């Protein structure tokens, strides 16, 4: 009975927690917007310095087709980078977990990748792959995604406990059975966490990479053009769109995490 009650409470608090996770930031956002609008229209801060939320919304509506277009371009770059970066990260982590040599060889490379700033790579890759190719941006998003996925997956592959390994040996399970029934499920929450962290990084990287040349049309490129031509409200409208894009990526990966962990009580590994 006590187990039942505890479970019920656990689920409930989980639900409240996830509702809170959505409601709380929205509330904070609305309050900030209110103060912002108040500063501009009542206190009289110049529209040139700080465009009011209302004017940003106006621009947002006026440039809606262009915003959608730009979001799609940047979003595609981020998604391609995220998918390939994650696949590469998981695959290499699997190899590194299996063979120590690969682990030793890859460790310095991964460490180097982890500290490479996007701003350093973007101009190089942009000129490498030409001014009309999105590949440079996708590569940057991919590199940014690769690191957290690789590190988390590798950690996940090392989480199997001695008692589980003994059990598998006692059952005379072959190596593919061990991978399927023990190693992968153990690593799964870690892999998903890696992908969730990578999703935000992929969007940021794809967007920031656009500041350093390459084809126009993405959110980053439009933010810099609008700001350069003093259309601050429009620049802010694109910023809003990029925030939305980042949120979509984050929520999608969070949803994926929930879906895969469906039915599992949380709290085993994070």
């Amino acid at each position, binding site marked *: 009975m006590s*187990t039942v009650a*505890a*479970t019920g409470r656990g689920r409930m608090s989980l639900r409240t927690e996830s509702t809170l996770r959505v409601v709380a930031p929205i509330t904070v956002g609305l309050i900030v917007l209110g103060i912002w609008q108040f500063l501009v229209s009542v206190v009289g801060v110049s529209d040139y310095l700080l465009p009011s939320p209302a004017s940003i919304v106006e621009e947002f509506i006026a440039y809606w087709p262009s915003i959608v277009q730009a979001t799609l371009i940047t979003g595609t770059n981020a998604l391609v980078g995220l998918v390939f970066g994650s696949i590469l990260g998981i695959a290499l982590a699997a190899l590194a977990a299996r063979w120590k040599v690969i682990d030793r060889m890859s460790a310095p490379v991964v460490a180097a990748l982890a500290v490479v700033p996007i701003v350093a790579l973007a101009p190089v890759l942009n000129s490498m792959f030409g001014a009309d190719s999105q590949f440079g941006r996708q590569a940057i998003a991919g590199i940014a995604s690769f690191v957290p996925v690789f590190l988390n997956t590798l950690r996940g592959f090392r989480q199997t*406990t001695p*008692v*589980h390994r*003994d*059990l598998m*040996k*006692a*059952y*005379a*399970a072959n190596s593919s*059975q061990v991978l399927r*029934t*023990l190693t992968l*499920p153990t690593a*799964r929450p870690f892999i998903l966490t890696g992908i969730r962290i990578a999703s935000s990084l992929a969007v940021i990287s794809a967007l920031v990479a656009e500041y350093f040349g390459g084809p126009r049309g993405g959110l980053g490129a439009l933010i810099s053009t609008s700001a350069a031509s003093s259309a601050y409200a429009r620049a802010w409208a694109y910023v809003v769109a990029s925030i939305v894009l980042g949120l979509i990526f984050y929520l999608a990966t969070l949803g994926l995490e929930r879906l895969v962990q469906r*039915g*599992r*009580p949380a*709290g*085993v590994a994070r």
Partner: protein
Amino acid sequence: MTDGDGGLRSDAGGGSRPASRNPDAAAAGIRDGAGAPPQPAGTTAVEVRGVDKIFETTSGHVQALDAIDLTVAAGEFVSLIGPSGCGKSTLMRLIADLDAPSAGTVSVFGKTAKQARLDQEYGIAFQSAGLLPWRTVAANVALPLELHGVASAARSGRVAELLDMVGLSDFADRYPDQLSGGMQQRVAIARSLAEQPRLLLMDEPFGALDEMTREKMQAELVRIAAETGAAVVFVTHSIPEAVFLSDRVVVMSPRPGRIREIVPMRLGVDTRRAARTEELREERGFFEMVTAVREALHGETPVTAGPRGVETR
């Protein structure tokens, strides 16, 4: 009375799975027929001959086991008891072929330990339940069956039966972390019984439980062992636990791990395992056995005289 309980159980079992009647009936025959040690003629479950185990560590060799000889008959319940570091878990791991002996031989039902492991001759339970947290209780119990290619229908039938046996039918769809420690341990025991092994290896399976749950689990284990007729090698460091459960208690001394004495248990009027009920814990004979094991453990060997056991080292 446990007799009535046992009868009820095997009836229920027979109704749902006719195939399992045989082991049950055989087990019952052993218990009822032979008054003394429950051994069917001529079968040896475990035979350990002259086994040494030396672990290589950075600081040198550690001799965990020294010249171990032990025979466990089919259907017999043997406990290994001794202080920490006496190698009792190591000995069990050698029988399970989770480690290999440095010298000597281990055979299980006449096969090498490795062959016995590959043939799945034993079921095993560890001190930590070792359940897979992402699998439901039912899926955890089904794990060995799944790994060994038992068809899905037969699997779910067997799982239902096992969960009934350990009294967890209502929890089949729960996840391990929704269960108490005692319940998790019962799931682990159900899992170890999944393939009706003739030998059960248990490494302090109740070590992490509180005293009350522990006594309840011991009674259940006695019942289950009697029902299935499996031989059990049970590692523990609790004297009352060893006395309550076992046909024989193997007392070990530490560093290097040696068998100091094997104390036969003569509990109650008959030594049938089915007769080990809760009342037994309050009987005189029980305390006498506890004393005998304790004295063997502390080296004041009153039964078998000799130079051994006066000093631990």
